[in-house]
């Protein structure tokens, strides 16, 4: 049981290291870095390699943004398996809705409660 914590720490950390290298070595902006990782996650799921990583690392694979791409592809593929080509479009948000809806809801709540501060 302990081992899932260690694998999640290490795998999550390593995905972030890839992100840091994209920013520092490849000189990508944060936005470009995140987009690259999302696309990578979605391609990995196309090969069926991301799910095993989630089984191995738990939150270490589901918390990084790569899992967002994975989940989108996964939803699309699951629907496509059931309904054919049209499922590719309809199934996309089947799995990922939680991240986006949470971001929208908490974004609005955050805006209601907080004001930005120019502190350091």
């Amino acid at each position, binding site marked *: 049981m302990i081992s899932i914590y260690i694998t999640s720490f290490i795998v999550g950390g390593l*995905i*972030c290291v890839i992100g840091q290298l994209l920013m520092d070595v490849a000189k990508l902006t944060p936005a470009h870095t995140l987009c690259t990782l999302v696309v990578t996650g979605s391609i990995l799921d196309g090969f069926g390699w991301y799910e095993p990583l989630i089984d191995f690392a738990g939150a270490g694979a589901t918390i990084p*943004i790569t899992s967002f791409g994975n989940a989108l*592809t996964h939803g699309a593929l699951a629907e496509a398996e059931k309904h054919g080509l049209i499922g590719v479009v309809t199934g996309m948000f089947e799995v990922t809705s939680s*991240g986006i809806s949470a*971001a929208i809801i908490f974004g609005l709540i955050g805006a209601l409660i907080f004001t930005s501060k120019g502190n350091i």
Partner: protein
Amino acid sequence: MEQEKYAHLEKELSPKTPILKNVIRAFLTGGLICLIGQFIALFYITYFNFTERTASNPTVATMIFISMLLTGFGLYKKISQFGGAGAAVPITGFGNAVVSAAIEHKSEGYVLGVGGNMFKLAGSVILFGVFSAFVVALIKTLLVKFGVVSW
């Protein structure tokens, strides 16, 4: 002085990016955030009817909630300054991008400000996530149809 010569001089004098230090910090910060996510997932698995697979949804939502609090209290930017990609890559970084834009544009009103700018930073992640998922799923579905690969 010519541009090339100046670029050379500038590169020589400007401080180098401390890549190793940044990488170690990103590893620790990102790892820690994922570890916290794992604990939250365990909480949902143990006390609610979620399996390892289904627990990731409430875990992600909870992480974004935490990210909202950290962003609102002005702490997330400090974590990011320390952790770099370690704070940007986890879903909390996505939450931070959405929440910070929403908070910042409150002064322009809730419709044009918050509504119009909320996805200013995070929108591209959604766009490219959705589009790449579409392409990948389309290719795979077609390949399955033609019998090249199986599900």
